[in-house]
């Protein structure tokens, strides 16, 4: 049953787009994804109007103070399981506007981000690549936790003990 659920989630990711203070460059590249040249409906991606219908939140822009509260609210309105994709250099880290007085500097200052797509703006192919990478990452089992590092054991043996061990 979980395989079926996972398959359906991967094959039908519905997105909602929010511009949290962007120059519009990333946004027009996102809208271009729906147009005939790039056509993401092939992957089952639909642009949904209401946050309650969507699985993936595409955020552009360097999160101005006025938008921060609204962005959080939209994220809260989305039902689980949900993912956040930060598109563009501004959403990843603030871009050109880092340090400005009205800019928080990146989506990960207020939301947990699942995928970062850099670029100013990223080409539509880069955005598709990023979304596909996100879906594939969900498919793969989580990477195993690294083994705890152990101090190497230093064994000092006498020559006779080595020979006796070898004879055993």
């Amino acid at each position, binding site marked *: 049953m979980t395989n079926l659920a996972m398959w359906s989630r991967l094959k039908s990711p519905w997105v909602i787009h929010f511009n949290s203070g962007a120059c519009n460059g990333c946004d027009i590249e996102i809208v271009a994804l729906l147009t005939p040249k790039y056509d993401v409906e092939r992957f089952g991606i639909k642009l949904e109007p209401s946050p309650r219908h969507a699985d993936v939140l595409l955020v552009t822009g360097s999160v101005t103070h006025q*938008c921060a509260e609204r962005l959080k609210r939209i994220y809260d309105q989305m039902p689980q399981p949900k993912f956040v994709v930060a598109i563009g250099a501004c959403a990843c880290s603030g871009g050109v506007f880092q*340090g400005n*007085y*009205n800019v928080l500097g990146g989506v990960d200052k207020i939301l947990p981000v699942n995928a970062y797509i850099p670029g100013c703006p990223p080409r539509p192919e880069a955005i598709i690549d990023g979304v596909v990478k996100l879906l594939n990452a969900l498919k793969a089992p989580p990477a195993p936790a690294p083994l705890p590092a152990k101090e190497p054991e230093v064994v000092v043996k006498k020559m006779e003990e080595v020979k006796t061990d070898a004879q055993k």
Partner: protein
Amino acid sequence: MPKSNIDIVKTLESKLSSKSVQILPGQLGTATVKVAPGDHRDVFRALVDADEYTAISAISGLDLGANLGVYYHVRTSNAFLTIEVEVPKDNPKIQTVNDIAPSATFHELEVSDLIGVVVEGNPRSGHFVLPETWPEGVFPLRKNVNASEVKQNPPLPEEKSDEGKLVKIVIGPQHPALLEPEKFAVLVEGETVKAVQPRIGYVHRGVEKASESRSYLQDVYLVERICGICNSCHATGFVEAVERILKTEVPPRGKYLRTIILEVNRIHSHLLTLGHAGLEIGYETLFQYFWRDREPIMDLQEILTGNRVVSSSLTVGGVRRDLKDTDIPKIRSVLSDLRKRLPFYTELYQNEPSIRARMQNVGTLKREDALKLGVVGPVARGSGVDIDIRKDDPYEAYGEIPFNEIVRSSGDTWARMNVRMDEVEESIKIIEYALDHMPTGAYRVKVPRVVPAGEAIARVEAPRGELFYYVKANGSTMPERVKVRTPTFSNIPAFLKTAIGETIADVPPNFVSLDPCFSCTDR
């Protein structure tokens, strides 16, 4: 623009001879008028009486040390004036000119928000461009305010306002109709709109303040990211103003290349809007077709500048890269393919019944309102106001290239969209003419890193209208003040007026027809 015979400088000199007014012709446009704070209203009255095309283009607020400078940039039918007023910092009061020139409203609110000038007669309740969490009394554009030291207030709880029997439908900040966040609270009674309350400032990134702490070259990259759609126009405005301070002359090939880049930008922006309008009226097929035909233009931008969207190809002194002769046939073929598709789209926009049903007589802006509110761009040209900076105040190579100015008189959404449709054809003609007459030679000149003290303005016809830049240099590697006034900022008051009395279903097409670009508006 009609060639009017009004000599605005002489008119001002004759009408204001008794006041303490200093008129300096040839500075910052046609003339600079230095006037005391009480007398600026008389200057405006004289201007508005003399010329119906008088409108405020921008108001720059400057921090001049002991005083605050309030510079009114006014355009008339054949002139562009700067009216400079200074108010003391400890009592920064000035009277509004809102009643004489209604185009001043938004600009006065912004100046009072960002630099702290108290405008009597145009009170500001809450913040206009700054966020609601911004503390009162801290004005970011003043020199003593450091960005990282400002502490935000906690967010305000949502206020429950009682509108009586009016239902408040909020469009935005997140809305499928808008690409960008901006809040428009539409008060409706049944399905009729009674009032629209805007709240802008969601995309305010503080570009003007940031430009003061970056070098001129870094600022080119900063200002073109004010708006991804009309990025080349922002870059053009900024570099032109700086070149005017430096008194550098860009070589002819550089000017022609800039013109081509600007016109390609215009075509892509208009195709974007024309398709987006289809989405608003439920015509998805139209949207898909327009954006499909827009893709070769994006490829063109990539050939010319190396980037699909943010071109980064202009620099102070010229353009950064040359146009190879091997690329020209490809450019010509893309343009001729687009030209073949245009009759189909023009036919659609002019004669298709459902488009006409949704767009005709919707959002009608009368000519006198358009003049009074100071709207620019296709919004003005759709209402019979023939202003186009490429014709009125030619820059780059526009003075040498013949083209038509598209003006329609009905003033409704349909007229505005058709103005844009026809302008695409004109842009193709301009590019082809520029390619045919491309001069050879250098495409850029070297400019010094340090810009001597001075100030200059530049105006560019962006796809959405008049884009205004004011740059003040102080002899260092960083500018003293950069003021940007974008076309949508001047056009939003027109929407607030035309939406009233129509149904809620008319709001999206009306809105898209003024081609709002909020990243431009808020900077």
